[in-house]
């Protein structure tokens, strides 16, 4: 979805949106503004912060308990010697996840949302001023566990990663199309449990994802026994490299679903940023 006025109008929905009935004494003003424009504006601002600090930001989304924090722990163990990583944690209550991440020796900041079921760009903006972005290569935002609302909010991040644990059922992409359509990468987690489940087929899960016209790659992994972790780490390092190359050309990265929206609806936003350091030269 794009973030400026009027550009959401496409050949498909134009007749619907343009239909106006004139009435006596009433002035009809055509607006055509995205309802999320306030959030999207803040998200662009966040992205400019991230780009100025050259830090790739990954938004991790899934149901509660599908293994986001365990994935982060395993990832940090593998990468903490070579990359500077930090995590923003979103939960309704407790700082449990932040403590788990901090125990791995990397900075973490907890956003407790109270009753809110998702993070938005404003919450993330408040959090990012608690982290020394200039010292980072990679920032994970662990969204609130929820397969519905988080998908609708741009946080200013660069990539969406959606986890699906094998205990949840392989039809989740068909049941939650808004969420899974947003995925730049789908991770199938807890594969160490597959031998105990006769009703989860990774290939069915992949097929349900592809039915959403998604060409996102799928990686099956287990944080417990390490299976599939190499493929995930390779994906991450490639993403960091691609992102750094884009920055050198004064461009930024956006989740694929947003790029599609822009191609469809309008010109890309004018996000300006000024790189502050060359701290990630070792990656390029």
């Amino acid at each position, binding site marked *: *979805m794009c973030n400026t006025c009027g550009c*959401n*109008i*496409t*050949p*498909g*929905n134009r007749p*619907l*949106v343009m*239909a*106006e009935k004139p*009435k006596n*004494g*009433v*002035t*009809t*003003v*055509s*607006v*055509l*503004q*995205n*309802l*999320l*424009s*306030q*959030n999207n504006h803040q998200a662009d601002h966040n992205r400019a912060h991230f780009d100025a600090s050259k830090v790739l930001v990954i938004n991790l989304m899934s149901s509660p308990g599908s293994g986001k924090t365990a994935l982060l722990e395993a990832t940090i163990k593998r990468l903490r010697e070579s990359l500077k990583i930090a995590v923003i944690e979103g939960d309704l209550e407790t700082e449990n996840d932040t403590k788990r991440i901090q125990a791995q020796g990397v900075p973490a900041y907890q956003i407790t949302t109270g009753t*809110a*079921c*998702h993070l*938005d760009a404003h919450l993330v903006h408040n959090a990012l001023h608690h982290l020394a972005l200039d010292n980072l290569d990679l920032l994970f935002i662990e969204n609130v566990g929820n397969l*519905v*609302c988080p*998908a*609708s*909010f741009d946080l200013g991040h660069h990539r969406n990663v959606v986890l699906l644990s094998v205990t949840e059922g392989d039809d989740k*992409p*068909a*049941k939650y*199309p*808004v969420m899974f*359509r947003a995925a730049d990468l789908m991770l199938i987690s807890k594969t160490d449990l597959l031998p105990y489940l006769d009703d989860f087929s990774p290939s069915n899960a992949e097929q*349900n994802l*592809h*039915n*959403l*016209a*998604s*060409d996102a790659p799928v990686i099956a992994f287990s944080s417990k026994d390490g299976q599939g972790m190499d493929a995930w780490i390779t994906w991450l390092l490639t993403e960091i490299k691609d992102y750094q190359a884009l920055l050198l050309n004064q461009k930024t990265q956006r989740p694929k679903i947003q790029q*599609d*929206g822009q191609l*469809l609806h309008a010109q890309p936003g004018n996000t300006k940023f000024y790189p502050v350091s060359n701290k990630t030269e070792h990656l390029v």
Partner: protein
Amino acid sequence: MHELSLCDDLLGQVIAIAAKHKAQSVESITVAIGALAGVEPLLLESAFSLIKAGTLAEQAQLILQTAPVIVLCRTCGTQSEVTPNRLLCKTCQSNETTLISGDELILASVALNCPD
């Protein structure tokens, strides 16, 4: 659950437009929603009726237009109206499709009562 905060944004935009046109009140508000926008029209409606109280839009009718989910096939060039969880071309079954309608969440227009 985020329909209420969405309504807050919607009302903010509407009130700003009404003020700009020096309107006495807002007659109606038209919003276009696609099935892939992640917003439930019924919840949006009930949230709006709560949040509009005591504002210029107190009497306003919220008109929700549901946009169909339509994909354009990049393989054979056909357009098909599809369901939200099956965005495949109906002609050739390809998943190389582009969504051309169905993810919108737009304040389309506002009808205002303006003094002459």
